[in-house]
């Protein structure tokens, strides 16, 4: 049997495990609710205008701004990715299921890759549901779906590659699944933004930071952030610098995918060395 066939088997059954977990449905429900509520706020309370976005921009790029606002709620699915991936490797050791899985003629690298692809697939399905709903709502309210939404989805996929890679890296190195999940969340939400903000204040554009690269999903709509938010923050120091740092979507996607692959490589290396003591 070829290793590629075994990889297919691992992906199929690891995805089945994810699909049967309550958190998969929980994540889907949360994303759908977030999209619907943000669309309702946007249209019901005229939220974008109240936020102080320039009237001319709202008139010209109303559909794009709405799609950006609503679909960005789908990014919540990226947090779900952490819950899909955080315990996947660690739990084999923590719960003892590795005693069942490891004495089989399959390489540890194949197991990691198969599990990773299964988690990525679960993430993409939840993300896809959010983006599809966002597209349908944009179509319903504005009569068209901006092309930038496809680009935005592409950047979001790159973020998913990165976030899953980071969760796998922690999961391969730490003893418990809960620790790996928390470490991923704290690194992504606290550590990265702290470093990025620090770099911004020091006058260095943190374009290479994963959280800044994530901002590039907005750039795909052809909206100038300085134009959109410049007045809103009154030229505020931090926001102004962050706005300028919003990067090129292609560069951001390549960067995030590269980081994700690097972290996945680390996970394979670490998982191969780990013993079932």
């Amino acid at each position, binding site marked *: 049997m070829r290793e590629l066939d*075994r990889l297919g*088997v691992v992906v199929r059954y690891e995805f089945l*495990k994810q699909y049967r*977990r309550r958190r998969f449905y929980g994540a889907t429900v949360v994303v759908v609710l977030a999209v619907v509520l943000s669309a309702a706020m946007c249209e019901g309370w005229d939220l974008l205008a109240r936020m102080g976005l320039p009237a001319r921009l709202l008139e010209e790029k109303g559909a794009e701004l709405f799609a950006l606002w609503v679909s960005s709620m789908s990014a919540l699915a990226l947090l779900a990715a952490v819950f899909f991936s955080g315990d996947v490797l660690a739990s084999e050791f923590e719960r*003892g299921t590795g*005693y*069942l899985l490891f004495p089989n003629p*399959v*390489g540890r690298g194949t197991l990691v890759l198969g599990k990773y692809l299964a988690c990525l697939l679960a993430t993409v399905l939840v993300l896809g549901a959010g983006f599809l709903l966002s597209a349908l709502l944009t179509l319903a309210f504005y009569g068209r779906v901006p092309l930038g939404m496809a680009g935005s989805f592409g950047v979001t996929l790159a973020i998913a590659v990165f976030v899953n890679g980071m969760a796998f890296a922690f999961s391969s190195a730490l003893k418990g699944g809960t620790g790996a999940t928390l470490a991923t969340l704290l690194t992504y939400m606290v550590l990265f933004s702290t470093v990025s903000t620090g770099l911004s204040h020091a006058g260095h554009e943190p374009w290479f930071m994963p959280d800044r690269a994530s901002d590039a999903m907005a750039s795909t709509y052809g909206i100038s952030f300085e134009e959109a938010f410049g007045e809103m923050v009154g030229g505020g120091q931090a926001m102004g610098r962050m706005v300028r740092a919003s990067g090129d979507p292609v560069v951001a996607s390549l960067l995030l995918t590269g980081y994700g692959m690097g972290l996945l490589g680390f996970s394979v290396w670490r998982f191969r060395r780990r013993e079932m*003591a």
Partner: protein
Amino acid sequence: MKEPIVMEGLTKRYGGFLALDGLSLRVGEGEKVALLGPNGAGKTTALKLLCGLLRPSAGRAWLAGFDVVEEREEAVARVGVMVETPEFYSFLTPEETLRYLGLLRGMDGGRLEERIEEVLELVGLGERRRTRIGSFSRGMKQRLALAQALLHDPPILLLDEPSSGLDPGGMLEFRRILREAGKRKTVLLASHLLTEVSHLCGRVAILHRGRLVAHRSLSSLRRKYGSLEKAYLGLTGGAV
């Protein structure tokens, strides 16, 4: 290398702790050998080294002629393993679990489905084949662990305390299943249950503090010491 299981100077250290100290042991084809010893004697460590869950600090081992480190996948392909308290993926059913493991072992569709049915019937889980494992008792998990070890009809079985945690009725039934399933197979069974060992094995290897202190047939141990219990207590200094 004729014997299906060969260990030569197998050693495992955890930091400063020597868990297994130069174990050399050969198990011939069709033999049933028990690794007997008190808790912490190195029985489970020896089995984990054999099936690639641990890497030896020194020494080598072969299963069916394949080096367990250099040719791990070839070696484990010929072995059915049941190590420690079995844990399963709670969201899968026994049927799905066995299908997953069978496919990883390269079994094809028709034969795999046939074997799944056979082994689930053998261990008495035929009627629970589509129940999620999350709701299973420990005894049911033990049975399923044995089913997965037998699924690919391996010539070698490595079993670690296979009936621990079962009630007396469950233990008796489990031993009956093991005797039946273990026919024509080479079995290395780690246990500290002397009754289990005397029911299932013809030879005994007694480990104490990581070292092999005896490797003889059950009958010769009984002749020399009077009973297996006395042999065990005498060779392990009364440790339990």
